[in-house]
């Protein structure tokens, strides 16, 4: 079976999750600190809403925006997944996924499956000649 990029990385992620699941009790036992997600914000500045709102409501915002975009062609940037990604992609990997990726690290911590990146690009569009 040939693996393509996502297949392979999904496999890696799956293995990482399994490993993490196996290690978690050990880690929790070894230190009294529960591992926290890595929230590595490469581009400091203000998000579209305050942090508490974003943490709680980003799924609803994204869902609301997705329906507007999909069905009514409204492509405003605030609350659009594309904008989230272009701001939050890691400066190292260029992606919001990966072990320390903005989306993945937190979702892994909360063990909430992200369905977005089956279809959506996890990296912002490369613009020729533009420095991000």
């Amino acid at each position, binding site marked *: 079976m040939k693996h*393509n*990029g*996502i*297949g392979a*990385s*999904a496999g890696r992620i799956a293995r990482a999750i399994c490993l993490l699941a196996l290690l978690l009790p050990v880690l929790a036992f070894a230190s009294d600190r529960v591992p926290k997600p890595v929230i590595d914000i490469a581009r400091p500045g203000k998000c579209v809403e305050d942090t508490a709102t974003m943490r709680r409501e980003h799924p609803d915002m994204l869902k609301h925006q*997705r329906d*507007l975009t*999909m*069905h*009514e*062609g*409204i*492509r*405003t*940037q605030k609350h659009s997944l*594309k904008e989230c*990604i*272009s701001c939050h992609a890691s400066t190292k990997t260029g992606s919001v996924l990966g072990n320390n990726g903005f989306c993945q690290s937190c979702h892994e911590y909360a063990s909430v499956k992200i369905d977005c990146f*089956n*279809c*959506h*690009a996890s*990296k*912002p*569009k490369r*613009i020729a000649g*533009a420095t*991000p």
Partner: protein
Amino acid sequence: MSADTNEVLSRRGFLAISAATLGGVMLAPGVRLIEIAAARAPEQPVSRKVRWGLLIDTNKCAPGCDDCVKACATENGLKNTGHPRTDAQWIRKVELKDMRTGRTNSVPVMCQHCEEPPCVDVCPTGASFKRADGIVLVDRHICIGCRYCMMACPYKARSIVFQSISDQNPDVPRGNGCAEGCTLCVHRVDRDQQPACVEACTKAGHNAMIFGDLNDPHSEIAQRVAKYASTQIRADLQLNPGVRYQGL
């Protein structure tokens, strides 16, 4: 990135105002740029007054030329995995030969953006839907991959994705297990650009494809279909596709 989008925004804002106040800038007498007819502010929903369509002049379409197909693949991130039977094809060139007369034609075929789309009629979840402006799309958020639309589409316009994909164009999300088809480059249309195939065809000097608003009597496409004979594929099915062909 942001500079780029701001520019688009401000241009669109300006056009929206000018379209509203001046009633459109005349290009040639009676013909307006499609951008102006279409311009809407980014927060404005698509309008029912618009019906996007394509007019393909098969007399100008060269056999074997696949500029439009290549442009589509690049724009929408359709990659060749070496398995043509399972690779998605949103647009294809169909070479035709009339059995009786021997006349040949070469025609690009993509989703025909039917006014009465059977794919929408059969879709169990409502994932296949028609936008107010006539563009037929798949909402991958709710598509369950039942492939019913593929069974129902008379034009073989839909593909399903057989494997997970990576490195999508951020404007064109696509992924394993969902049905998909030509979107008329809806992400470009929403930015007041032409579909990639049309742009490529024009750029290469063939000028075989025109894109525009069939409902706007001033648009080039509406004027052309009003003046010259054009047909729809399988017009007998009465689906009233938004894609029309000349010279078939």
